C-alpha cells in the first residue's frame, strides 16, 4: 500500500498515526479511570458506567443550549463549566445510587452486576423519555474544532489534544487523591480489609459513598469530553462499556497503573492494526490477544500483592 509515496509523505502519515494512537489511549484511560476506581478499588461491577458517562454528555448538551441562549459571550468557555457540572451531576447521582442500592450489595459482588445492569436500563429509558429517542447534537465552541498544522502535511485534531490534556490532568489528580492524601489512604485501607479499617476508626460507609461518587463523577467528565468525538443519545453509553471493562480487567482490576498500561497496550495495538488491516479485523485480533493473555495471566497485567 505504500508504493508511489515519498518518504516525507509516509513520515507525516506515520506521525499522524502515532497521534491517533495516543488520542485513542487518552480516550481509553479517560473512560476507564472511573470504572477502575469503582470496580478495582471497591469490587463493584458497575454496568451502568456508560450511562453515568452519558449523563455527563447530556449535562454538556443542556449547558451548551443554556449558555448559547442566555450568555453567548461565555460560549467559547462553556465546555469547562459543562465539565464541572457533569462531574457534580454524575457524582451526585452516583452517591445516591450507592446509598439506595449498592451499599446493600457489598457482600454480594455478582449481584451488583445484575442490579447495576438494571440501573443502566432504567437510566437509558429515563434519558429516552426526557431527551427523546433521537441523538442530540452538542454544538462545540469553534476553538475546539479543526486541527493544528504542525508542518505542511502533519495535522493533529485539536479536540484530540484536548482529550489528551484532560486525561493527563485527571490522572494526576486521581493519583494525588488516591496515593498522596489521607482520604486516599482510607480508601485503600477499606479496600484491603474492610473490617480492620472499620476497627481503626475509618468511617467505611462514608468512604464507600465518596469513592463511588468520585468514580461516577469522573465518568461524567469523560462523557462530557466525548461529546467532541462521539454521539450523545440514550444508548450511547453502551458503545463504551465493553472497551471500558476490557481495559480495566486486562490491566489487573485493582491497579490504577495497570489500567493505564493496559489502555496503552490495547490502544496502540488497535490503532496500528486498524491502519494496516481493516477495522473489524483489528478489533477481532485485539480481543483475541487480550483473551490469550488473560488465559495465561488471569489476574491481569498488574496485580497488587495483598495477603488474604
Amino acid at each position, binding site marked *: 500500500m505504500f508504493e508511489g509515496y515519498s518518504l516525507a509523505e509516509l513520515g507525516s502519515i506515520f506521525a499522524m498515526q502515532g497521534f491517533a494512537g495516543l488520542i485513542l489511549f487518552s480516550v481509553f484511560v479517560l473512560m476507564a479511570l472511573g470504572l477502575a476506581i469503582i470496580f478495582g478499588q471497591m469490587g463493584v461491577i458497575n454496568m451502568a458506567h456508560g450511562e453515568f458517562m452519558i449523563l455527563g454528555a447530556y449535562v454538556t448538551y443542556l449547558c451548551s443550549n443554556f449558555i448559547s441562549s442566555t450568555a453567548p459571550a461565555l460560549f467559547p468557555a462553556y465546555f469547562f463549566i459543562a465539565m464541572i457540572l457533569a462531574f457534580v451531576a454524575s457524582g451526585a447521582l452516583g452517591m445516591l445510587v450507592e446509598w439506595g442500592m449498592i451499599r446493600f450489595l457489598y457482600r454480594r459482588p455478582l449481584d451488583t452486576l445484575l442490579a447495576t445492569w438494571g440501573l443502566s436500563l432504567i437510566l437509558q429509558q429515563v434519558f429516552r423519555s426526557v431527551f*427523546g429517542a433521537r441523538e442530540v447534537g452538542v454544538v462545540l465552541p469553534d476553538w475546539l474544532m479543526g486541527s493544528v498544522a504542525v508542518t505542511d502535511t502533519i495535522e493533529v*485534531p485539536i479536540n484530540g489534544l484536548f482529550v489528551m490534556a484532560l486525561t493527563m490532568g485527571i490522572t494526576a489528580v486521581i493519583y494525588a487523591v488516591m496515593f498522596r492524601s489521607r482520604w486516599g489512604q482510607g480508601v485503600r485501607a477499606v479496600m484491603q480489609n474492610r473490617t480492620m479499617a472499620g476497627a481503626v476508626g475509618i468511617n467505611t460507609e462514608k468512604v464507600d459513598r465518596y469513592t463511588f461518587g468520585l468514580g461516577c463523577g469522573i465518568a461524567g467528565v469523560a462523557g462530557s469530553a466525548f461529546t467532541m468525538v462521539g*454521539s450523545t*443519545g440514550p444508548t450511547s453509553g453502551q458503545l463504551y462499556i465493553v472497551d471500558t471493562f476490557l481495559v480495566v480487567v486486562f490491566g489487573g482490576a485493582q491497579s490504577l497503573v495497570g489500567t493505564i498500561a493496559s489502555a496503552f497496550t490495547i490502544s496502540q495495538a488497535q490503532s496500528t492494526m486498524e491502519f494496516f488491516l481493516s477495522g*473489524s479485523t483489528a478489533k477481532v485480533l485485539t480481543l483475541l490477544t487480550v483473551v490469550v493473555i488473560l488465559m495465561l495471566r488471569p489476574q491481569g497485567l498488574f496485580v497488587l500483592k495483598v495477603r488474604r
Partner: protein
Amino acid sequence: MSSDKFDAGKPVGGLPSPLRRKLLLGMAALPAVGLLPRGALAQALPTDAVNTTKLAVTDSTVKVGILHSTTGTMAISETGSVQAEKLAIAQINEMGGVLGRKIEVIQEDGASDWPTFAEKARKLLVEDKVAAVFGCWTSASRKAVLPVFEQYNGMLYYPTFYEGLEQSKNVIYTGQEATQQILAGLDWVTKEKGAKSFFLIGSDYIWPRTSNKIARKHIEMKGQKVVGEEYFPLGHTQFNSVINKIKLTKPDVIYASVVGGSNVAFYKQMKAAGIDLNKQVLMTISVTEDEMLGIGGENIAGAYACMKYFQSLQNPNNEKFVAAFKAMWGANSVIGDVTQAGYLGPWLWKLTVEKAKSFDIDKIAVASEGIEFSGAPEGYVRVHGNHHLWSKTRVGRARPDGQFDVVYETADLIEPNPFPKGYQ
C-alpha cells in the same frame, strides 16, 4: 387515480379540538385521492364480500398494526416512521377511511430486539387479525418477521432502504433496494466531479457490505478504482486510523455507509482531522435529516447524500406533507428518507384495497402491481410486480442547518431490481 384534487368534506365530530385542528391541517395537505361519500362504500360492499379470510374488518372499522421499536437502540431511527404512518392513517380516516371503514391502529413495540419483533408480528396476525402491518426498520427485524408473515399470510409494508436480494408475496417494500440508491448516485459523482477513485467505508453488517459490493462492481465496470474498503463494528467510536488511511490514499470520493452512533463519531472526527467536505467529495447512503440531528449540520455540511427523498424537496405534495407532519408532531420535526417511505405505506395499502375491492391478503398481493400514488411527497410512485417501488434517485448536499439542497434527480423513475444480475 387521476384526479389531482379532492373534496375533503367536513371533519368528523367527537375529536378534541386541538387534535382536530391538527388533522384538519393534515387534510389540507392531503394528496390527491378520489373519494365516494362517507359510508356509501361500506353499504355497497358488505363485510362478507370484502373480507373472506376473517380479518379484523367490521362494517365500520378495519384494524391495522404498527410494529416498530419505540424503546431500545433503534428507537432513534424508527420513531420517525411511526409518526409518518400515524399521520397517513389519520389523513385517510379524515377522508372516510378505506372502503368506508375507519382504520384502527394497534401499535406494538419491537423493542430493538429481533425475536420480539417476530413474537409481536405473530400476535398482530393471529390474535388481532390485522389487515396490514406497517413496520420494521432494520433488515434483521424484517428477516425475523418474514417467516411469520408468510406462515400466517399477513401483509407487511416495509419502509427502509435496504440491501435487496429479497422479494415476498407478503411484503411491499416502500424504500429503495440497493441498486436504486447506489447506481445513479455513482454515475452522477463520476460525471459531475470527475471521480476516478473511491474509498468505501461502512459499518460491519449485511446492508453496508451488500451495498458496497454493488458499488464496487459498478465502479470497476466503469474502469474506475476502489482504493480502500473498510468495515467497522456497529458502535465503533474511533475513526482516526482510517481517516489517516483516507489521507494516505487520497480518494476522489469517500463513499460512506456508516450507521448509528458510529456515524456521529465518524463525521466529528473527520472534521477535527481537517478533512474539509467542501473540498473532499464525500457521498453517503446512510445519512438523512434524522441522522443530521445527532451529527450536527456544521460537522457534515458539504457532503452529498444519495436518497430518494429530502425534506427540502420542492413540489406541492411535499410542501403539504411537511406542513401536516409539523402540525401533528411539532414544528421542530425533521423528515428523513425513511420517514417519507413510511408515509407511503398506508396510502399504498388503501389504494390497493380499493382497487381489489377487498381486504383479502391474496387479492392485495396480486392487486399491488401497478398501483400508482401521485400524491407521494417524493412525487409519483408506482408499485412494481416485484413489490418494490419505481422511484427517482436524488442527490442532496448537506447544509449547516441540517437540511439538504437537492442538486440532482434522475429524469425517470428507476426500476427496482432486487436481484441485480452481474452485481452479485
